[in-house]
């Protein structure tokens, strides 16, 4: 049953993405200054929002784990963190491709890029820490503490990087923030299927995590004899 729901959801997400791609390339005109590459923003930005939401949920479920000591929340925290990392990476890569086209360089120490990179490193550390702890209960507890620390760090990172860059000459001036309504709508229209995909991935990861825990427990039962 659950499996069917997940397959159904991902099907819906894929159909919507296809539809959005069609609209993007056929209906929407090229952006005046940037040309066709502009369309990458319809993935670049929603993916970043998704990653941020993931960070929020990771912190929330980590706190919930520490309060309830229910490993379900720990499984949710890992799942959300991993998926968030993947979407963060997608954000970085799409940003780099765009940068190569528009700025002519793969990487600019732009505040947003830099902040995203630091956040990726923070949460990659979370996964590394987890992999080094054997006892699932201890792993959940220590990882939850790290996740909370990381979450408090994220806004500080974002703001401080922004300050840092405003005091130094920026490599590229960020274009005006105005966007045409049709573009704007597409941003949200595309966010929906991306979020849906994230939800499916999180559900699958949580299930894996549960099965993994069961196997681990069975192994310990086996050692008892």
């Amino acid at each position, binding site marked *: 049953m659950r499996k069917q729901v997940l397959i159904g959801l991902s099907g819906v997400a894929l159909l919507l993405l296809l539809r959005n791609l069609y609209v993007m390339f056929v209906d929407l005109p090229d952006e005046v200054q940037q040309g066709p590459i502009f369309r990458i923003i319809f993935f670049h930005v929603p993916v970043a929002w998704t990653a941020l939401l993931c960070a929020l949920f990771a912190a929330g479920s980590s706190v919930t784990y520490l309060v309830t000591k229910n490993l379900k929340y720990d499984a949710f925290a890992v799942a959300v963190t991993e998926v968030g990392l993947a979407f963060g990476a997608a954000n970085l890569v799409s940003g780099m491709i765009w940068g190569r086209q528009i700025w002519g360089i793969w990487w600019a120490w732009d505040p947003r890029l830099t902040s995203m990179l630091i956040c990726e490193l923070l949460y990659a550390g979370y996964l590394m820490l987890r992999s080094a702890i054997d006892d699932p209960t201890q792993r959940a*507890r220590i990882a939850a503490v790290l996740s909370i620390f990381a979450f408090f760090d994220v806004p500080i990172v974002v703001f401080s990087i922004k300050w840092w860059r405003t005091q130094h000459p920026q490599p590229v001036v960020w274009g005006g923030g105005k966007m045409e309504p049709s573009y704007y709508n597409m941003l949200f229209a595309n966010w929906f299927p991306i979020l849906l995909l994230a939800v499916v991935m999180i559900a699958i990861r949580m299930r894996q995590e549960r099965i993994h825990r069961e196997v681990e427990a069975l192994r310990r039962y086996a050692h008892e004899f």
Partner: protein
Amino acid sequence: MGLFLRQTLTIAAKDLRSEIRTKEALNASVSFSIVILLLFSFAFEPSSEQTHEIAGGLLWIVFAFAGALILNRSFARELVNDCLDALVSSPTPGPALFTGKAIANLVLLLIVELISFPVFGIFYNVRWLSQFPLLFVVMFLGTWGIVVIGTMFSAMTVNLRLRELMLPVLVYPMMIPLLMGAIQCTTALLNGQGLGGEAAPWLRLLIGFDLIFSILAVALSDTVLVG
């Protein structure tokens, strides 16, 4: 409250005494920071005017690296003979244990910094003596931040395989805002600009970072120490 303070200071004094006696971390940390200072001289022209602009960055990278050596030892020291168990099962609350260890680490890291600072001044021809009181304030704030994050993560990673490798990977990304603040303030001071003006928001960042993570660490110390 009196007992809390007594326990905190007892832990701090214990760590300092064992470290001063063996000087394991201290020696390694001081020589390591001098080696890095030396290595930097190959990365850019040490006598150029440019040195002043990157002086703060240089120093704090050295301090952060040297700190990792000290912080790694902080809880690893308790592993021999299962001493950590005896501390946790004593009536010492987690926050007292954490604060005591953080204070010891702060003192040790400040010692390393006070040794490497003059060396830096000589190597790179940077005049710092006239600015010293304010510089020390910045050093204190920056070092406290390094130590709060580092002590917490030292406790979190104490039982892990690959502990020594894990700590820097976890700790440095977390410290980036703090290091930025410390770097900006230090550079401003070394260029004779004082802490007003452009450096002011960075000083506030330093203080804010210290406060937020001190509270967080104290609040979560029992969670980390008691399984």
